[in-house]
């Protein structure tokens, strides 16, 4: 578990989340032509921010 990402999720620190997830974005941009790269990247960033903002990270789960 990436502790920096976990902390960022908890604090909804979007900049850190996006920074930590850059490898994921790049992975899904493989093969995209240079002229389209920026547009695709922005769409992925927006999707990520939307998913994070909708998720309630405060919900609890009982282990025992």
């Amino acid at each position, binding site marked *: *578990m990436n502790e920096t990402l*976990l902390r960022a*999720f908890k604090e909804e620190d979007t900049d850190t989340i996006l920074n930590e997830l850059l490898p994921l*974005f790049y992975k899904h941009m493989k093969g995209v032509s240079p002229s*389209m790269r920026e547009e695709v990247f922005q769409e992925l960033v927006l999707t990520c921010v939307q998913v994070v903002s909708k*998720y309630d990270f405060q*919900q609890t789960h*009982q*282990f*025992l």
Partner: protein
Amino acid sequence: MRREEKSKTPNLKRQFLKTLDHQAWHDTYQQTKDPILLEKLNSAYSDFVNYTVLLSLIQTNIKYKSLHVRERLYQNTQELVSEEKWEYTLDQQQSPLQPLKIDQWGAVLENEELLNAVSTLTERQQHVLWLLFIDGLQATEVRKQLDVSIQAVSKTKQRALTKIKQQLQEG
């Protein structure tokens, strides 16, 4: 709890216990039944589940968004290429008509902004608009006159009108 969630939970708990700290807390709790340790364990488990679920949601959404955006951009590119091809085909074909002079437009258009916008069109675009709107020909007749397909006439007209609209909006 849904069946899907039920099947995931033991797997998540197993994964959670793979971390040495968590395994140690769990073992100690089993021996001591310390409520503070239980709270710590549940808190760490909540973080673990939320982290895993959220990351999985992000990964899935990113994957499908990437496919969707690529497909949309590819379609847009194909449409642009297709329009360029029509325009090129039209430009390559010989027409018996003489090039239009902007003076000819000046005789029928009083609006100076519109006249300026028309002057930015290619010769072919001007011809098609002239035949359609000034001579009042049907697209099929324009097609015959220019000896091109009906789609080529339609595309050229569409592009010409879009260009005029843009020029007027910018002006």
